[in-house]
């Protein structure tokens, strides 16, 4: 692992176009700013690992439990109850 010392306000550059800047340093945490091309996704590691585990669990569910899901519908809400066609789309923000 490459180890670098940086002060508040200083940055490192990864590759040609990823810049990580130390914005704030506190006793128990630091704040980082990350400038990266939009094709690069940036996540907190523990969140990414959690999503990995859930994806693996969804594959295991398909392998092991597809027969259960085929015959046992979950408590599906009534059609149209609170979910309009409009509501079946993501809120894309302002």
């Amino acid at each position: 692992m490459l180890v670098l010392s940086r002060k508040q306000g200083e940055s490192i550059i990864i590759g040609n176009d990823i810049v990580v800047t130390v914005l704030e340093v506190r006793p128990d945490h630091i704040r980082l700013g990350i400038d990266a091309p939009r094709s690069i996704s940036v996540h907190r590691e523990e969140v990414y690992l959690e999503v990995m585990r859930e994806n693996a669990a969804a594959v295991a569910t398909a392998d092991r439990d597809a027969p259960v899901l085929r015959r046992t519908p979950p408590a599906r809400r009534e059609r149209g109850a609170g979910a309009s066609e409009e509501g079946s789309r993501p809120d894309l923000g302002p």
Partner: protein
Amino acid sequence: MPTALTSDAITGERVLTFEDGIPGFEASRRFVLVELAEDSVFQLLQSLDEPGVALVVTVPWLFFPDYAPELSEMERRALGIECPEDAIVFCAVTLDAEHETIYLNLLAPFVVHAGTRRGRQVILTDSDYPVRAPVRMVAV
């Protein structure tokens, strides 16, 4: 309530392209959606690159009508999504058969552009949605 997912527009032979793969299955770039059973609320997101990889998925609004994922500007641009109608959204499902509960991953929905069929598993930023949102199964 017709959903984009269960229409012929998305299931069947149409290939969905996830250029970055999905977390845990980075080698899987091409997927198809397959109905789990006739009239099922579940589909399989079947990888064409890794035949052993198929995730159970569903339309989140069937179970969580108020679900309102917000895509970041970055994600919208990466997928070319300009209006809500461009996006097809579904979530991974896991089952706890013993406790008769399914769980939807609301934190990381799959978002596919309806026109280009390019998609991503979007991890919502600074969202309180859980990776395991429980739904009770109907006793039969």
